[in-house]
């Protein structure tokens, strides 16, 4: 029950509920409403952006599980996305597997690959772990580029359109629902993960892994498990990219992409599922908005659209710096502060 002095739980069910106060449910309802309305009102350009955000959010949630909740550093995100995308794409293109099965396979394969590349985390920390994961990024891309027989090497892998029981999944509108569906599932899964013992174990490892070991957490098992779970999410995101864009090329999975995802979770908020989503929205809308601005300003300031990619990258870098300097806990924290302000007004705390 909610009172002016706080939230009290009087039943076990109350304790386990996803939301506690009426206003939280209202906000959730509004968010759901917005999600449902978007594909009908958005222009084709923004619908594409929305789909990209959905996929990125899934990947960002995965990365946040590893980095935000378990405290491991990973620069290998791009490589894992590639594994997911190529696995799923190849299974459909070369073996004609129905795409839900291919995606499931992609999730499992990526989780396995992630576990393998997570082995260094058992011995390394900080700078050294960062470099080891950087190595995994380069190794995976090198394999993709040179394993011509399987991945088509430096060319593009063209994935046939997805079909299930004769229903064609083509076009932004159809994919929107699919992506949102997976996104909701992923969010629920992640949120529940951190309400369970496994999630709390991850957090314990982040806070102090040696102390966690002392209270009975096996760091070997749980660090690897964290890599596996995180990579599973990322593999799903990769597989969705493959089927949504129908083209898989190695250029989409470079170190820059790893950095983009890290930026998403940092700007959004480490250790927060909703933060991952906010970060994904922000980091993808930003370059898209700049692009639109460039098109609009073309006649007035032609230099803007000529230098567009450089400006997008510059703003990207600047945004990361500004967020980290002024609000290191990200958008999730800013939103929390807004909610608190409204809830406690006119008091300050």
């Amino acid at each position, binding site marked *: 029950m909610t009172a*002016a002095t706080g939230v009290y739980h009087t039943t076990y069910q109350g304790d386990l509920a996803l939301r506690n106060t009426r206003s939280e449910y209202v906000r959730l309802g*509004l968010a759901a409403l917005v999600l449902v309305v978007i594909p009908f*009102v*958005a*222009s*084709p*350009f*923004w619908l*594409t952006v929305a789909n990209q955000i959905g996929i990125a959010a899934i990947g960002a949630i995965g990365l946040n599980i590893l980095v935000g909740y378990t405290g491991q550093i990973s620069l290998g995100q791009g490589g894992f996305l590639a594994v997911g995308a190529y696995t799923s794409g190849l299974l459909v293109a070369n073996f004609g597997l129905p795409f839900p099965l291919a995606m499931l396979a992609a999730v499992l394969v990526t989780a396995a690959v992630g576990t393998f590349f997570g082995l260094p985390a058992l011995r390394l920390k900080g700078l050294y772990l960062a470099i080891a994961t950087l190595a995994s990024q380069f190794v995976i891309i090198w394999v993709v*580029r040179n394993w011509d027989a399987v991945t088509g090497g*430096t*060319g*593009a892998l*063209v994935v046939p359109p997805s079909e299930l029981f004769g229903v064609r999944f083509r076009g932004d509108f159809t994919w929107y629902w699919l992506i949102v569906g997976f996104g909701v599932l992923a969010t629920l899964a992640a949120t529940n993960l951190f309400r369970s013992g496994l999630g709390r174990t991850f957090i314990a490892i982040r806070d102090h892994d040696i102390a966690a070991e002392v209270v009975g957490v096996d760091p070997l098992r749980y660090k690897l498990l964290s890599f596996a779970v995180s990579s599973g999410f990322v593999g799903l995101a990769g597989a969705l990219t493959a089927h949504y*864009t129908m*083209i898989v*090329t190695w*250029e*989409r999975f470079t170190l820059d992409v790893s950095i983009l995802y890290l930026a998403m979770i940092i700007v959004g908020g480490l250790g927060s599922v909703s933060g991952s989503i906010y970060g994904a929205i922000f980091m993808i809308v930003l370059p898209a*908005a700049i*692009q*639109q601005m460039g*098109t*609009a300003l073309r006649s007035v300031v032609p230099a803007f*659209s*000529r230098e*567009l*990619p*450089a400006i997008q990258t510059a703003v990207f870098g600047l945004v990361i710096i500004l967020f980290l300097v002024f609000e290191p806990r990200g958008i999730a924290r800013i939103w929390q502060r807004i909610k608190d302000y*409204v*809830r406690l*007004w*006119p008091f300050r705390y």
Partner: protein
Amino acid sequence: MAIPLLTLRKEDIMSRTRTLIVVAGLVLLTAACGGAEGDNGDAAGGGDGDGGGGDPIVLGGIFDLTGPTGDVGTPYAEGVRDFISQLNEDGGIDGRQINLMSQDYQYDVALAEQLYSQYQGARAVAILGWGTADTEALRGRVSADELPYFSGSLSEELADPQETPYNFLVGTTYSDQMRIALKYINEQTGGDANIAVFHHDSPFGESPVDDGRQYVEDQGFGFEYSAYPMPGDATDYTALLSRAQGATHIIVQNVASPAAQLAQDIANQGADAQMVCLNWCTDEEFVELAGDTAEGVLGVTPWAPASIDTEGVQEVVEASGNDDVGGHYLQGWYYAELMTTAIAKLVEAGEDVTGPNLKSALEETEPFDTGGVSPPIDFSADDHKGMTVAPIFEVTDGTWNVIEEGVEP
């Protein structure tokens, strides 16, 4: 204790004011978002691509300005843009302006694909594309959408109208250029040569490699033939040159900057190999970057560097008001001119500017003359190779000069 009914408790006021603020904020937010979406929604769109009246004609441009081939992609893009704006200044096509939608895609295939979707949605009548990888990846959609597609890529994969009916190659294919180079080398050396092909590490680079090998076999040349991909992030090619030791001729299928670095490394190593550039490094950028190590390098290209002073160059210099035109600028200029000439033909004949009509117009046009900048461009219904011959050039005294005209593969 009676509580006066009309007394409002402080908590009630606070709670009600809060709700009011929140609701007001939400309403404003929705209004702003709705407005913004409405505005932004149309920014990417263009006018109608076809139809009558004074509607603008939409062309889609996929350019690499800052990516790995940006050194040659930028002048090309400038050539296209300058021609279109000059054409628009002169009144466009039958009073209709040309709307060139373009963006830098940095050689990223997926971004190219996104741009293609955008241009298609904006009802573009034709696309001026660029890279081999993305053009080949898009070919299925291009054929299905019946959208005429010029590409900077001259890959032989795109030349057969049976397979890619809407792709047009405005130049001699990479494979033909390779064959011309090999034929010339055979003439010069009497059949005794060791060929090393140094190529860009991508489908663009690999495009002529196998065809070259096949040609050597078919013609019975006694050459050794091996291929070496040039890694994109390499800062020098000393290591690669060691692997290619003993090569007498190094054929380079890459753009100007890596080729210039290679030329310097060859000179530094004192390697005794003749360098032969194919079209994307036979240009002024190469000579400028390589400095005196460019001396004596041979080149095969259908699009002559601007140092070869021809009528075609003069025309472009006059029309663009730009003194400093380079080979790739000319290429872009003439690509745009060819496409718009075909469109103009359709408009004058009173036909709708649709994909299939434009395709026929391009195939039926007489050989397009570029005033000496390139061999005449001629398409037909069975052959989308714009040209099959190319001159051979050599760098002497810091500029490219023709040493043999119109060589056939």
